[in-house]
């Protein structure tokens, strides 16, 4: 039962990432338009935080539901061969961090991925580094170590098929998966 819930939530997270507002994936290679993105997500997160603080423990509705502000921003994208968090994602991660810090019983799994270029096991390492970077950013918000699991799939589970930069930019990612 728990396994199925886990898979459903992961599927929802993937769907949300694919179908949610496109502002985070529209410009994966740029950093110049960070200001509008963070302004939007700040607005969203303040609404999200307000909702969240009063509904501690609620994960399938409110902030984390498929239509909620955090629910639609669960994927962090990265530049090639990099595990550095781009400025446009800082607020998104902080929002998740604040929610988790306020809900110590809620746990997440950070799933790190890469594009297909280069060797597979090295890419496992790169995906893990990406997951760890997001973990550290969450920890800065006060999230406990026990709340965060990491796993790297390297290039083994791409989000987008294809061998062009359009696909690659969608595959270099960390997915934030709520597991309870």
């Amino acid at each position, binding site marked *: 039962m728990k396994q199925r819930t886990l898979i459903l939530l992961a*599927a929802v997270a*993937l769907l949300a990432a694919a179908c949610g507002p496109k502002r985070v994936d529209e410009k994966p290679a740029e950093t110049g338009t960070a200001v509008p993105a963070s302004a939007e997500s700040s607005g969203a997160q303040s609404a999200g935080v307000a909702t969240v603080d009063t509904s501690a423990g609620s994960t399938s509705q409110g902030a984390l539901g498929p239509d909620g502000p955090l629910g639609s921003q669960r994927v962090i994208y990265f530049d090639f*061969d990099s595990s550095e968090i781009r400025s446009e994602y800082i607020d998104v991660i902080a929002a998740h961090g604040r929610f988790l810090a306020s809900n110590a019983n809620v746990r997440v799994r950070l799933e790190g991925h890469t594009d*297909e*270029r*280069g*060797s*597979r*096991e*090295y890419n*496992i*390492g*790169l995906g*893990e*580094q990406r*997951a*760890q970077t997001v*973990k550290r950013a969450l920890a800065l918000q006060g999230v406990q170590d026990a709340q965060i699991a*990491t*796993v*790297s*799939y*390297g290039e*083994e*589970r791409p989000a987008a098929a*294809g*061998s062009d930069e359009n696909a690659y930019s969608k595959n270099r990612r960390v997915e934030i998966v709520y597991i309870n």
Partner: protein
Amino acid sequence: MRCALLACALLPAMAWAQLKIDITRGVTDPVPVALVPFARAVPADGGLDVAAVVQKDLESSGRFRALDRGAMPSQPSRAADVNAASWRAQRTDYVVVGRVVTVADGNVQLQFELVNVLTGQVLLNETVTVPQSGMRAGAHRVADRIFEKITGFRGAFATRIAYVSVDGAPPNQRYQLWVADADGENYRVATQSSQPIMSPAWSADGEWLAYVSFENRVSAIFVQRVRTGERRQVSARRGVNGAPAFSPDGRRLALTLSGSNGNLDVYVLDLTTQALTRITEDPAIDTEAAWSIDGQTLYFTSDRGGGPQIYSAPAQSGARARRISFGSSYTARPRVSPDGKMLAVVTQDGSGFHVGVIDLASGQLTALSRGALDESPSFAPNGAALIYAGRDRGQSVLAMVSVDGTVSSRLKADQGEVREPVWGPFLN
């Protein structure tokens, strides 16, 4: 011999039942040979056309051209009955004749002779004895002997390959680890999962495969006895478990662990005592370890210098690592040649990712393949060729290239994706 000594590197057969072979680059002057159908032992030979198996092996190497059966002046089964002049008229240089004979205790003998029709000399007069169930393997050994006699290099037709296939669309993907004969026959699934399988590795005796499986939602390393399918989990530590490699004596496994802080490092696990020895200890990504043939040194990928490069370190302790690869900004995933003198690697240049070799004595790095997304090179056990994975017009392919770069071939799967081919050792 039609080829210069160094150019005569052997490219063993790679004609897959599920995969279609396509020689993209062969020698300009293949050796013409005639494989006469063997005299049969009915019903003990099970209907196997031994000469056809040998012919397919030799032709798939890119070094031989076989005479069509319809053009054969006669079909003798003994060298004494070979009229050399009639074969020379068909422009063949060599004729192979043979007989399948049943012997006591259920075995079968493949008796064969190799005749040089230019000189009339009988170069080989040998017998391969196998159980009835092993006739196909026996035919590959016949091909090996002929190949070796004519080219001077050991054949690798009696070998096996393992590889991973993926089909289906997410989230209903199916990952399968396959084992097949080097000619694509006798293919069967060793293990399968809805979660990724990666990094297969043979033990030196060919009895075991180690691999990484995500069947428990996180990476874990399994070893599996190929003959029986019996498998056990050998590392499921917290964090990454990856890149398994058996030591030459089979007693240890090099592997990659990250622990809970996500920092990948190379370790050695004693499979009997479970003792774990740490080989690298630094914040970089250290992974993809491969053993020297004496079991004393590990070669591995590390990005401690910025981008991925190959380093070496003693396998017994965590002594200082030495950089091995130069000349490219990205060189990774070393595999050691059977003679221990070369590494197969993945290397990046302006035209993409290729497979290549590093000569350990000189440090020279040579790219061998021409695709943009080539990966996972593995040496044939005779050291003469690499099998690897690549992409061609959006489709995944397995491909081979001889170590001297002169012969290449490509195999396309009918469906799904194929990846991570790994060449097993010589079969006995």
